[in-house]
């Protein structure tokens, strides 16, 4: 099936750019690889027929958060390399721990028998119309509270970025 190939391609792209994000020395390369990962994940949302999430993901992550990261990287002068890299045994232990966690998670997912209610490529719940109905009917209060959270985050960021000593 054609969409299967797209899924494998996007997964491989996301995993590759995720690994390259860790391997690249300069932070700006890491940011660009992370952007590639985010676009691949946005493609996965489109494959799941979740249009609303795909649009929001592209706008929020590739649009807003990546611009924030890029501005921060350019604002800070990060050209000098790591003066004291972590010892090799810490890296080896971290990689072993991460790979073992991954094996446990993969084992859990393989053992779980997925009860297929609906084929995900044909599900209609991700469309903007359906999600809007649910969001404004059942989840009205959390939606409004999240605006207060945003206001708090904005005030906090401005307060932290002020010139005067806090």
């Amino acid at each position: 099936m054609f969409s299967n190939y797209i899924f494998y391609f996007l997964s491989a792209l996301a995993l590759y750019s995720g690994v390259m994000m860790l391997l690249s020395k300069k932070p700006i390369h890491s940011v660009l690889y992370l952007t590639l990962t985010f676009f691949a994940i946005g493609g996965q949302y489109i494959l799941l027929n979740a249009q609303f999430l795909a649009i929001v993901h592209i706008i929020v992550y590739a649009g807003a958060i990546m611009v924030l990261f890029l501005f921060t990287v350019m604002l800070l002068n990060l050209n000098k390399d790591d003066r004291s890299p972590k010892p090799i045994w810490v890296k080896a232990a971290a990689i072993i721990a991460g790979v073992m966690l991954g094996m446990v998670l993969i084992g859990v997912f393989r053992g779980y028998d997925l009860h297929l209610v609906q084929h995900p490529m044909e599900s209609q719940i991700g469309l903007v119309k359906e999600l809007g109905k649910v969001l404004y009917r059942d989840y009205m209060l959390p939606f409004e509270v999240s605006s207060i959270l945003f206001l708090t985050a904005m005030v906090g960021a401005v307060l932290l970025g002020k010139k005067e000593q806090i």
Partner: protein
Amino acid sequence: MFCSMLFCIGVIGVLIKRNALVILMSIELMINSINLLLAAFSAYSNDPAGQIFVFFIMVVAAAEVAIGLAIIVLIYKTTHSIDIDVLNKLKW
């Protein structure tokens, strides 16, 4: 399986990197993999609540990134480095 591999890349990144900015990026990667997994399960079980939840997680992640980057800029202003080892006074 793809999501859990992405999550593990994020975990390894948090553990091996010294740059606070890259650590924040790895945390973003973990949040994204969890979002994708939640959206996939929601599409499988035909339940829109999961996708609403993903939306709220994105809201929280955006706020978290704004605050985190402000803190990193502030750390850079005071110590002229974003190496996480300059913050080891916070350990005790």
